[in-house]
């Protein structure tokens, strides 16, 4: 329920996101910061720590699917 509200937001990668591993992103939510597990939205993307990502979709139990935001 609440994960669905995160879709469309941006997050900061705090643990390397890539296939075959569990990444971590930090999201501003409910006035604070929470960390969620993160996986690449296309299943193959590798996103290094510190990059900004867009939350594409969410799965229950704290898992988000993200994709890297290009250089803005």
């Amino acid at each position: 329920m609440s994960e669905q509200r995160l879709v469309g937001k941006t997050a900061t990668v705090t643990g390397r996101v890539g296939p075959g591993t569990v990444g971590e992103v930090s999201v501003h939510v409910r006035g604070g910061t929470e960390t969620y597990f993160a996986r690449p939205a296309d299943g193959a993307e590798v996103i290094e720590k510190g990059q900004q990502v867009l939350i594409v979709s969410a799965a229950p139990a704290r898992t988000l699917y993200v994709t890297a935001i290009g250089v803005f």
Partner: protein
Amino acid sequence: MNLAASSVIIVPAAVVVGVIIVVILLFKAMWRVAEPNEALIISGLRDKGIAKDSSGDEMGFRIVTGKGTLVVPGVQAVRRLSLDLHQADLQVDCVTHQGIPVHVSGTVIFKIGDDPGSITNAARRFLDQQDKMDQRVHNVFAGHLRSIVGSMTVEDMIRDREQLTARTREASGSEMTKLGLIIDSLQIQEIDDPTGYIKNLAMPHTAAVASAARIAQADADREATEREQQANALKAEAQRNAAIKEAGFQAEVDKANAEAAQAGPLAQASARQNVVEQETRTAQLEAAKQQQVLVATVIRPAEAKRDADIATAQAASRVAELTAEGQAKRTTLEAEAKATATRATGLAEADATKARGMAEGEAIEARGLAEAKTIKARAEALATNPEAVAMQSLAEHWPDVVREAAGAFAHVKNFTVLDGAAGVNRALMEVASTGMASFEFLRGLFVPKGVAADAPPPPMPQAASPADLTLVSPATSDNGSTEH
């Protein structure tokens, strides 16, 4: 009346107050507030507020966080679930990726997730065992830590913190989600290494550092020793220089002392030398004096005598020379005079012969011409008689002529007449005849033959005649017989 009226007012007021109080108390009993670090789990009395998950299924209870809610006592049950941070200490014996047994002590910090899903999962598992949650998590996480350590090397565990957290997420993420828990942090506090792997890991570096330290120590020691030795060498050099200088100064002092000691004798010797020089000079002067005396007394007289002898000898020699010269000259002059005399004799004879011939010729010629010219000459003589004037003048100069002729003898210093008086006369005759011949010649020049023969003769022919010469001779003999 007043009392009844007042009671009528007071009673309803008391009732109202009582009702208000009751309502307040009731509300107080029914209203529950969730504090920031807790969640209210309300179950019973299904209402619209019951939570539904994303699939639309009802959960059967309500979760309230961060706000108040009304609970109907007796109908609904309210439980509080703490969302505080929990910590579990882990002591795990495990094996690393390289098969090295290690004893790891770590700490895991976790909490119940803030989202409804996590709260739901946690509420379903731990609502009555919140105090045992640490133990549960410890047991679960020990296995996770074992697997995490087993997938890493000791070096990675020590150095690569990022990899450690990533492995923690991978290993425990899904399981923790099931429990509704979030791992905030996993710290490995200590790795106990019974095999000494870590120590050995550090050994090369330790040895290198120790070696470097020893090398540095040795270098420093060596350098210090070198400096020390250099300093010693410099010290020795300085000492040597000082000794040399000292010796030099001592030598100078000794020299000066010796010189000072010798100054007296030296001065004495110098004075003695001067005395000797002066004595030598005196001796020289005396010798010079003696020499001068010798010169004056012996050499000069000897020289004078020698000069006198030389002069005498020279005089004698000169006398002899002059005598010889005079003899030679006399002989020469005699020979010359004899030759002259002979030549004069020859010449006179020749002249006499010639004159005789010429006189004859002229006599013949004159005789022929005289007749022819007699008339003319006589007429001219009558007209003018220049010849007479000329002859007169010639007669006046005759003595000069004779004197010039006699001048030939003037340069003869020694006129030696060998024949005595007769010789003198002959010589004078010759001179006179020479003057006669000159006279005749001059007369021939000035006087024509015919006229001369007929004209009265001037006084000179008498002077030129040989008979008159004897009269003249005494005058001329003064010159010719001076030496005689």
